[in-house]
């Protein structure tokens, strides 16, 4: 199953590259640099998915105290951090030619950086507590509180005046993008989601092994 998921994710990523570079047209205003969007947007959407899973699994753990929920929260949190880091880096690279700066303390950028730091802290916290049960409990609380930042990141561009553009895809109004750009984004979004599921299954297997060795 995991192997098939891996191959499916690899095929999806190849299809995403073909769509992003071969099918989607050059942006009328930004030129080809806009193609960074096909990495940047799927990365943050995947991070949202990962941290939403952390929230659900953390609630599950606090209510049931079953290790499976903690295993899921831990694994999804780690992968969410990877994708949030990728969002920050790709956004910074996109920002330099379009905004003229690698970084600015804009509400969207700052809230995303805070999201990244919260979940880095979430992972560090697990390593700092010796008792695994207590560590899981503390992490679950941070996992739940950290999720509060997800809507702040997403709606920051509507709530504050920002340099970052307002949401295009998950916008309250109809997305103002051409069909081929929308399709390229969709293919890349699905590919990143498949990659997330594949990495999650690998991370879960690793965490299970860690528990067996610790026992």
């Amino acid at each position, binding site marked *: 199953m995991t192997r098939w998921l891996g191959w499916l994710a690899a095929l999806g990523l190849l299809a995403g590259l073909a769509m992003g570079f071969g099918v989607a047209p050059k942006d009328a*205003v930004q030129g*080809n640099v806009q193609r960074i969007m096909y990495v940047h947007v799927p990365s943050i959407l995947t991070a949202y998915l990962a941290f939403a899973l952390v929230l659900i699994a953390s609630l599950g753990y606090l209510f049931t105290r079953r290790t499976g929920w903690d295993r899921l929260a831990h694994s999804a949190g780690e992968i969410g951090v990877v994708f949030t880091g990728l969002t920050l880096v790709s956004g910074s690279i996109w920002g330099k*030619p379009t905004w003229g700066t690698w970084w600015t303390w804009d509400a969207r950028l700052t809230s995303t950086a805070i999201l990244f730091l919260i979940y880095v802290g979430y992972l560090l916290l697990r390593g700092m507590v010796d008792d695994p049960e207590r560590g899981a409990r503390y992490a679950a609380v941070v996992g739940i509180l950290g999720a509060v930042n997800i809507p702040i990141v997403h709606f920051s561009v509507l709530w504050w005046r920002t340099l970052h553009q307002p949401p295009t895809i998950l916008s309250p109004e109809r997305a103002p993008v051409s069909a081929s750009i929308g399709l390229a984004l969709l293919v890349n979004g699905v590919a990143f989601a498949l990659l997330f599921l594949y990495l999650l299954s690998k991370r879960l297997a690793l965490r299970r092994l860690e528990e067996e060795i610790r026992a």
Partner: protein
Amino acid sequence: MPDHWGFVFAAYGIAAVVLFGYWRRLIRLHAELSALKARREVKR
């Protein structure tokens, strides 16, 4: 606006390195822990 292909390739390149690196790390750790588990089972 100029195309800035260098920035495009840098973004895709870094994404590829990060994701491939993370995947390799998971594979490597799994192999190391599996070997450790097998060694412990032999000792028992």
